[in-house]
């Protein structure tokens, strides 16, 4: 029993084979759904894949744009998870960070250009997201309030707060009833299709912007944080064995609070991509579930920055491909696309163990057999 848990299956199984099997299973069940409404699943998947990777109509760019959001929220979940914390408040943390975008842009976008505004927005997003993460972190560390419950509650508070802020404070400054006005175009990071001509290529319209590079940089920073810093060492110790943390003189409460601040800041960065760069204004519910999807992304990416990039690409492709599908096959309604996306999340996230445990058990049994042979051969 303890032996089984102690032996790990090979890396290619954990981050390659198992996610692939999960995806295949999800697509198989999705095929049944498509068949049910009388369409050809093969054709549907072809459209989805083509829609997600084609460069003709900005398919690939939009996939990457979605992936940018998923990388930020996925990293947020992963960092918290390394400390043994389940942060499901990414949605709210990102949403509140939108307020920082509005604050900076509405006050400064007429006086400063993008080179000054963008760093301020990054700082604002990280700070507001961190604040929204650190409060549940503090409550967990000092009061024992469970982080899952408090982060969910903070999502609701964020929704109410932002609705109020948009309607009462922000929209009167020039937007529609629930939106802000557009940020001044000089103050916003140009999108890839806008930059393309000056870089010597053509790109069709998409929401993709160089923020993707910021997201990839965050991946590298998170990797360094978790595996190369003392804080990361402390985070992983607290997450894996709190007793050992006490033994090592690590203050678990402090680590929990700091981790939630970092996690919230990463989630907040999603607003940098969405509310600042992509939409160019603050819209009601602009987070539209990207924060929650970060949980599935982190799960599928095994809480590793590299895995998260891959998972974010997959979910980005699902989002973009799903949009194409609605155009091409009108009988597949947006709700049907949601069902397919949901099934992928279901099999890779919620039902993770359904595939993982039996597959890992096979490899573990092999590893134990080898270990036993080694033990018999001499200690």
């Amino acid at each position, binding site marked *: 029993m303890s032996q089984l848990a102690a032996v790990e299956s090979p890396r290619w199984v954990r981050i390659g084979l198992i996610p692939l099997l999960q995806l295949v299973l999800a697509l198989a069940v999705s095929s049944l759904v498509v068949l049910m409404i009388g369409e050809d699943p093969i054709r549907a998947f072809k459209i989805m894949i083509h829609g997600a990777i084609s460069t003709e109509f900005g398919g690939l760019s939009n996939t990457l744009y979605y992936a940018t959001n998923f990388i930020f929220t996925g990293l947020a979940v992963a960092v918290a998870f390394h400390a043994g914390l389940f942060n499901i408040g990414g949605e709210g943390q990102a949403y509140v960070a939108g307020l920082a975008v509005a604050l900076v842009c509405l006050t400064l976008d007429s006086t400063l250009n993008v080179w000054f505004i963008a760093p301020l927005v990054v700082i604002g997003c990280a700070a507001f997201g961190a604040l929204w993460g650190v409060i549940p972190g503090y409550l967990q560390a000092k009061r024992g309030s469970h982080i899952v419950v408090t982060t969910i509650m903070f999502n609701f508070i964020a929704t109410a707060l932002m609705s109020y802020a948009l309607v009462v404070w922000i929209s009167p400054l020039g937007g529609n009833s629930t939106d802000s006005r557009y940020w001044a175009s000089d103050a916003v990071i140009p999108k890839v299709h806008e930059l393309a001509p000056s870089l010597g290529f053509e790109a069709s319209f998409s929401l993709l912007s160089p923020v993707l590079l910021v997201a990839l940089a965050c991946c590298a920073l998170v990797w360094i944080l978790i595996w*190369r810093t003392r804080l990361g060492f402390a985070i992983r*110790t607290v997450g*894996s064995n709190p007793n050992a943390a006490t*033994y*090592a*003189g*690590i203050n678990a409460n402090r680590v929990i609070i700091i981790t939630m601040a970092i996690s919230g800041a990463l989630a907040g960065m999603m607003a940098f991509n969405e509310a600042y760069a992509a939409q160019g204004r603050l819209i009601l519910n602009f987070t539209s579930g990207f924060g929650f999807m970060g949980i599935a992304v982190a799960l599928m990416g095994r809480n590793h920055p590299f895995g998260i990039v891959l998972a974010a690409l997959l979910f980005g492709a699902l989002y973009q491909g799903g949009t194409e599908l609605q155009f091409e096959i009108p009988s597949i309604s947006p709700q049907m696309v949601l069902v397919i996306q949901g099934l992928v999340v279901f099999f890779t996230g919620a039902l993770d163990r359904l595939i993982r445990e039996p597959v890992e058990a096979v490899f573990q049994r092999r590893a134990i057999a080898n270990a036993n042979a080694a033990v018999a051969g001499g200690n």
Partner: protein
Amino acid sequence: MTAPAIELKSINKRFGPVWANRDIDLKVMPGTVHGIVGENGAGKSTLMSILYGFYTADTGQILVNGQHINIQNSQQAIAAGIGMVHQHFMLVEPFTVLENVMLGMEGQGLLARAQSKARKALNEIASRYGLDIDPDAIVGDLPVGLQQRVEILKALYRGAKILILDEPTSVLTPQETGQLFNILESLRSQGVTVLLITHKLREIMAITNHVSVMRAGKMVAHRDTDRTNPEELAELMVGRKVLLKVDKRPACPGENRMTVNKVGYVDDRGVKRLKDISFSLRSGEILGVAGVTGNGQSELMKILTGALQPSTGSVSLETGAGVHVLKVGEWPDAGQMRDYGMGHVPEDRLQQGVVKSFDASENAILGYHNKEEYGSPLLKPENIVNATLELMEAYDVRPQLPSLKTANFSGGNQQKLVLAREMMKEPDILIIGQPTRGVDIGAIEFIHRNLIAARDKGAAVLLVSVELDEILSLADRIIVMNDGAITGEVVASETNETELGVLMTSTADADAPVFEDKGHSGKYEKKEEAAA
């Protein structure tokens, strides 16, 4: 001849490469109290879990009252008349005694009828076995001893004629222990068979009729209690006749390193775990702390190493890092203790000493990870790996693979890694718990030699161990703990196991356990005297 209440025939249970139970045979006669003793990890709990249906044996047979039965889960065990009282109670604290007793046996949708039925049955059982209790009391409000009584009532209400008690006295005060033994007496006289799992030999001698000894997954001996003695049982448990002799010169104690002054600790349940502990520790000596597991040693170690705040008392440290007086309320954490010149090998390496999922190299710096030599500002893996290789080389940790997951090392090698980490820094004070638990003989000698070497280099070593011969062969002075208090201090070269055994069971104050039963404890005392 009557059939045994329980008969186990060649029970085998393997977890991966580990044999938890190997060819276990056991006969328990009806209407007796049968003790099962063994060290931690000897396989007692696994065996009882098999009997109660938590695990299924790989091979072997179980007979209850002469009938072959197949126990796949605890419902089947209950149906066969087997009840279990767990070490950690399985009670719903906000429920009343009555509700807890009938839990899972309500019978129908509405509770009223079941309740009155259960109340009648409960009263009847309580009066038959002398288990008085208020059926309407809230379980969470009851003292631990009475909660345990509820567990026993639960088992009896389910028709148990065979009762398994797993380490029942580990959470009890001495008075409650006395009361429990009275209950076991009365159960026995009513024909109930009791299986008592413990590692406290005193209890075995006081209450059981027969005793079986387990060691390393095997059943090594069966004895009638009145024809054995604690010394023999201890030897059977440990499996060694000879003391491990360690070459050592007499100690030359130097200056005082640590003075512990009236340290006390009261746990969350309000139980006094430590009572006014005072002693001093000098450089160049090994001070052994002897005692049966669970008599306050763990709490003492945790307090001295900064993992736990004491309730009363103070400690002063005089090390190369200066003089520090530690007081309640401003107790340092484990990291500060290390800065004050303390090394700590924890009793339970998997719980405290290492993170199983970490690479060996990461565990090699656990607790010292803030030191600049491991890279600054970022951790430098090559520095850590080199440091780890050095530790592995010096302490012969095998395999010498710093990148291997710690869980994949054997227990002995994990322990050597922890020892290397704590001792290679040459701290002025070394606090060491169970240094050789789960370690093979070869490694034990190696570890012992290194402890003596550390002492001779001037370390002040506090050695906590439940292995008496380990303490006897390593320590220069020995303090003995029982029930959270120091019951005596002796010079190692002038004492023996018998004297220590007496101190381990004697009490420092009037909180003496009361065994109001016939004969057994008296006989035990007499034997002690004869042996002395």
